[in-house]
C-alpha cells in the first residue's frame, strides 16, 4: 500500500473521473428535483394532459410551418441583398434590418390587428400567428443564407471564373452547394429561436402551449405544477433541436 491520498488527488484530475463526478452531481440534483415534483399535487392538472399536449403540438406545427414558409421567402431576400442591383439591394437590406429591429410582439400585433385595416382582409389568429412567425423567420433566415453565401471563400468564384464558367453556373454549381452545407446547422438553430417565439402568439389568443397552460391555470389554479410542465415542454423541445444540430455538426457554435 503506497500513498493512497496522492493517487486519489491525481485520479480526481483525470478527465474521465471529472466527468463521472459531474454526472453523479447532475444525477443527485435530478433526483432531488424529481422528489420535489412528485410531492406536488397533480390531481387537478392530470385531466388536462391531452389539452396541454395538443397545445404543445400546435407550437411545434407553428414553428415548423413558419420556418418552411420563412425559408422560401428568405432565399430571394438574401439573393437580393447579396447579388441584387443597387436599388434592390438597399431595399432588401432596409426591409430586413427594419423588421429585425422591430419587436416580435409588435410584428404579431401588426399582422393580427393592423394589417387587416390596411388590406381590408380579415385574418384568423392562427393565420396571423403563422404569418407573423413566417415574417420573423424570413428575415432571420435571410441573414443565415447571406452568411452561408459569404462563407464560401472568394478564391472559389475567382477560380471558377478563371476556368471560364459563367457567373450563374459558378453560383449554381460552386457557391450554392457549399453554402447550403455550411448553413444547415444555423438553419436548424433558427428553429430553436422560432420555437420560443411561438410563445408570443399567446398574446393574440392562439391556443398554443403557453396559452393552454395559462387557460388550465385559470381554471384549476396550480401554478407550480403548470409552470413546471411549461418549462419542461419548451426545454425538451428546444433541447431536442439543439441535439440535432450537435449531431449534424459537433463543432458548430450555436448562436441564434
Amino acid at each position, binding site marked *: 500500500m503506497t500513498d493512497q491520498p496522492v493517487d486519489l488527488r491525481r485520479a480526481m484530475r483525470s478527465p474521465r473521473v471529472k466527468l463521472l463526478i459531474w454526472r453523479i452531481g447532475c444525477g443527485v440534483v435530478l433526483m432531488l428535483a424529481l422528489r420535489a415534483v412528485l410531492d406536488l399535487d397533480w390531481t*387537478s*392538472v392530470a*385531466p*388536462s394532459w*391531452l*389539452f396541454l399536449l395538443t397545445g404543445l403540438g400546435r407550437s411545434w406545427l407553428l414553428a415548423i410551418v413558419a420556418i418552411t414558409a420563412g425559408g422560401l421567402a428568405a432565399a430571394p431576400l438574401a439573393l437580393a441583398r447579396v447579388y441584387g442591383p443597387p436599388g434592390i439591394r*438597399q*431595399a432588401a*437590406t*432596409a*426591409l430586413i*434590418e*427594419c423588421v429585425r429591429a422591430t419587436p416580435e410582439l409588435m410584428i404579431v400585433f401588426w399582422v393580427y*390587428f393592423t394589417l*387587416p*385595416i*390596411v*388590406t*381590408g382582409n*380579415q*385574418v*384568423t*389568429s392562427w393565420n396571423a400567428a403563422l404569418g407573423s412567425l413566417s415574417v420573423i423567420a424570413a428575415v432571420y433566415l435571410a441573414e443565415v443564407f447571406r452568411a452561408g453565401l459569404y462563407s464560401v471563400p472568394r478564391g472559389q468564384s475567382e477560380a471558377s471564373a478563371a476556368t471560364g464558367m459563367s457567373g450563374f453556373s459558378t453560383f449554381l454549381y460552386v457557391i450554392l452547394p457549399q453554402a447550403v452545407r455550411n448553413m444547415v446547422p444555423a438553419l436548424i438553430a433558427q428553429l430553436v429561436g422560432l420555437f420560443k417565439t411561438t410563445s408570443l402568439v399567446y*398574446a*393574440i*389568443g392562439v*391556443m398554443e402551449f403557453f396559452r*393552454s397552460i*395559462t*387557460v*388550465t391555470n*385559470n*381554471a*384549476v*389554479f396550480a401554478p407550480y405544477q403548470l409552470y413546471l410542465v411549461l418549462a419542461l415542454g419548451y426545454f425538451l423541445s428546444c433541447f431536442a433541436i439543439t441535439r440535432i444540430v450537435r449531431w449534424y455538426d459537433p463543432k458548430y457554435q450555436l448562436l441564434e
Partner: protein
Amino acid sequence: MGATRALARMAMALALAGVAMASAELAQADQTLDTVLKRGKLIAGITYDSPPSGYLDAQGNVLGYCADVARYIAKRLGVGLEFVQITASSRVPLLRTGRIDAEIAITTPNKVRNEVVDFTFTYISDNGVMLVREGQSTKVEDYVSPSKVIGSTQGNGFVAGWKNLHADAQFKLYPEESSVVVALKKGDVDAVLTNEFSAHRFAQSGGLAYTAAWTTSPDSIMIRQDESKWRNWLNWALQRMWLEGTLQKLYKKWYGVDVNFRMGDAGEIQSRVMEIGQTDDPWKDLPPGFFDALLSDKSYTLQ
C-alpha cells in the same frame, strides 16, 4: 455610417408607403347577416377569462352565459359556431376588421364606443364593483385615493368611468382579466375594477371579496356600425329568447339570480316580434334535446 443613413432613408420611404396604402378603410356595410348565412358559420367574439359570462375550463371548453347565448343564436340561424377569444383591448379592432361577426360578451355601450360600433338591446344587467383582497376594506370610498393602485384590463370601460369620477386615480392595467386577478392576490394592485358577476365568482374561489356597486353596467352584444339588418335580427332573437323564457333560464343557470331587467325598447318587447322567420329572416327550429342540453352543465358539447 453610410449604411445607417441609407437605412434611415429606407425606413422613411417604407413608412410613407404604409400611409399611402392605409388610406383605404374597411367598408362593407350591412351584409353581416348574409355573410354568416352564406358562410354557414357564426364567428362570435367571446371572453375566455370572465367567469361566469365567458370562460374556459381546464380542458379548453368554452363555458358561460354568453357562450350559451351564442350557441342558441347560431342554432336559430341554422349555422355552425366558432368562438374567437376577445379581450377588452382586442374586441373593437377584431369586430371592425371583420374577424368576428358579433362580440357576444360583457361590453357596456358608451359614446366613445358607439362612435365606431353598434349595440343590441341589453341582455345582461350587471354592476361595476371593486374586487379586493379578503380582509381589506369593502367600502368603495376607501379606494378613492391616489395612493391606491387600481387594477383593471386595458380597454375596460370601468377605467374611463372611474377616471371621470376620480381624475387622480392611479391605474395598473393588464391585457387580461385573469392577470389582474393574480396581480390583486399578490398585492400589486389594491382593488380591481370589474363587474359584479365576475367578482362574485372570483370571490368564491377564495381569498377575495368585493365592494358594493359604484356604477351600473348593462351589457349588450356589440356589432359593426351601420348593420341594421344584423342588429335587428339579433334584437328580435334576444326578444324571442325572452318570450320563450330561454334567456331567463340561462341567466339563472349562470348568474344564479333571476333577471332584474326587461328586454326590449324601454323594457317593452316589440310587437309582432313573433313574426320573425315568417318572412325571409332565418329562424330555424331547434333540434330535439337542444334545450335540455343548453340548460345543462354540458352545454359546451353542443358546439
